[in-house]
């Protein structure tokens, strides 16, 4: 099987974010960047499919920064090769989707995997956009996947339940947490990843569809809540400490 996994380079979720001096970007100084956590599920699923059915896994990223570090990470996990498309400036989702579609349209991928979202801008748009541009079916937020030949059965999370859909290859899948348990790359594979190829592909020029006007940190508003000693209020405070404040 010919498998593509689109990955992105995002700030570590434990990083404290500051807005840059232009008010439109984040200050990247001191920020540790990682492989987008949802993309690890996508990679793991593709690698497992390769291990089961044979074939190749290619990892791809579009980034304005040098993203070879996360591509090496994908190669260490088990991808066979990587494609790096360097953008001249921070691209919007539309530009990223166009670049992915343009660079893979002739490569006959059976499945194209994505994380369900990148945890930096959280646009949720790219998997569907790429599928549309390539004119292939897509299914998003997939938590269980079965592939038999060209038949694909995907279970996806929907509000309060699960939905099972069937589609056929080629198709696009965006991975939800729980799809699998991503592996830790092994040191011998990290050493071998150095020898795997990373192909650099020129940026496909297309105008951005969305312009960032400003970004701001959320204002920490404290809203007081007064509860009594009734059973329902006690239940509410336990729920609130558990689910809202997440301290218990």
């Amino acid at each position, binding site marked *: 099987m010919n498998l593509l996994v689109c990955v992105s380079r995002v700030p570590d979720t434990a990083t404290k974010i500051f807005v840059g001096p232009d008010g439109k970007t984040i200050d990247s100084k001191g920020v540790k960047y990682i492989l987008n956590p949802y993309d690890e599920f996508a990679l793991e699923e593709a690698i497992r499919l390769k291990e089961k059915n044979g074939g190749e896994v290619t990892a791809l990223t579009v980034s304005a920064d040098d993203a070879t570090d996360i591509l090496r990470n994908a190669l260490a996990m088990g991808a066979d090769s990587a494609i790096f498309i360097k953008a001249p400036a921070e691209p919007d989702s539309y530009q990223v989707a166009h670049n992915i579609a343009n660079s893979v349209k002739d490569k006959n991928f059976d499945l194209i995997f994505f994380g369900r979202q990148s945890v930096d801008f959280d646009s949720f748009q790219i998997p569907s956009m790429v599928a549309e541009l390539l004119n292939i079916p897509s299914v998003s937020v997939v938590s269980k996947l079965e592939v038999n030949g060209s038949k694909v059965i995907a279970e996806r999370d929907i509000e309060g339940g699960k939905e099972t859909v069937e589609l056929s290859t080629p198709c696009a899948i965006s991975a939800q947490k729980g799809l699998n348990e991503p592996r830790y790359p*092994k*040191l011998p594979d990290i050493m071998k990843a150095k020898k795997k190829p990373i192909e650099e592909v020129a940026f496909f020029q297309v105008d951005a569809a969305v312009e960032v006007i400003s970004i701001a940190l959320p204002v920490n508003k404290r809203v007081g809540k007064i509860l009594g000693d009734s059973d329902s209020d006690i239940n509410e405070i336990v729920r609130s400490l558990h689910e809202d404040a997440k301290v218990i």
Partner: protein
Amino acid sequence: MPMSDFFYTDDLLSDDEIMFRNIVRDFVDDEVIPIIESHFQNATYPSHLTKKLANLGVFGIKFPEHYGGSGAGYVMYGLAMQELERGDSAIRSFASVQSSLVMYPIWRYGSESQKDKYLKKLAEAEFIGCFGLTEPDFGSNPAGMITTATKTSQGFLLNGAKMWITNGTVADVAVVWAKLDGEIHGFIVDKGTPGFTAPEMKGKHSLRASVTSELIFQDCEIPAENILNISGLKGPLSCLTQARYGIAWGAVGAALAVYQSSVDYAKSRIQFDKPIGAFQLVQEKLVYMLTEISKAQLVNIRLGRLMEEGKATPQHVSFAKRNNVEMALNCARLAREIHGANGILGEYPIMRHAANLESVKTYEGTHDIHTLILGHYITGLPAYQ
């Protein structure tokens, strides 16, 4: 959680080194830290982690691919030891023994058939190894050992006892040092060899999540091909240099754990209506920790590169082991004070690291012996003879 790196030592690491360090770091956060306190309390080793550590490639870091290793360098190994000991000294001790004290002597002094028989299986943790040098009456003075090997028609007969042996009870293979015709030689002893037993030592207040054992040899006959090709004290000492190097990194991991917990605690614990981190006496303790950890990080990276270039001496390793373990123990004690009563609770990692580091300070060459090694280096006058 980003770790303290005040002098940007990450800039001195390769991409591979950073990637693997981060993977071991994540592994320790996910798999070691959540479970280690109960193992420490119950005095059990978390044996389910052994295979997982092997799968990461932790045991074979420095050895060639042919023997199940990765062919990586000393800094890679050091970083892994640092992260494991950030979890617990027991986990790092396991890896030190497996890699530096068992795989290393077999790789360095073993015959090709010994290497083929053991190294890959040790790298994959199909075999667990242990290292028998110390005896009940010979710790800092291993040259005085009384365990003997005598030649027989089939091989060698071992008699004697070893003590304080990490993993002895669970080991499939022991590298044992014994005197043959008055000179120290290394021997490989397989589990189950008649005359070889390894009872566990109980009642430790330190390294409680690690198995510590005696090795007892009573007319234990091993085949002639199980001897290693090295004689004299330099054999075991060369292994200890490898392991001590890893301890120098591991100590920084333990210090980072107690420092990080102290910073968090100092910023969140309120007394007299302000965080205790606002008090000068607490700040002074935190500054000591940051300073000593940063210095130790710089020593480690330099020592690691010297090891890789073949320029490091055992004295460099003594310097790093001595300095870093003492500073880590001091950090743990200060962290205990910053955490107040909470510092003694299992909810925080402080007392566990403090108790572990008490052992780390006196194993693999006591702090005092490393002082004498450096004193010997400076003056040319050995104090231990």
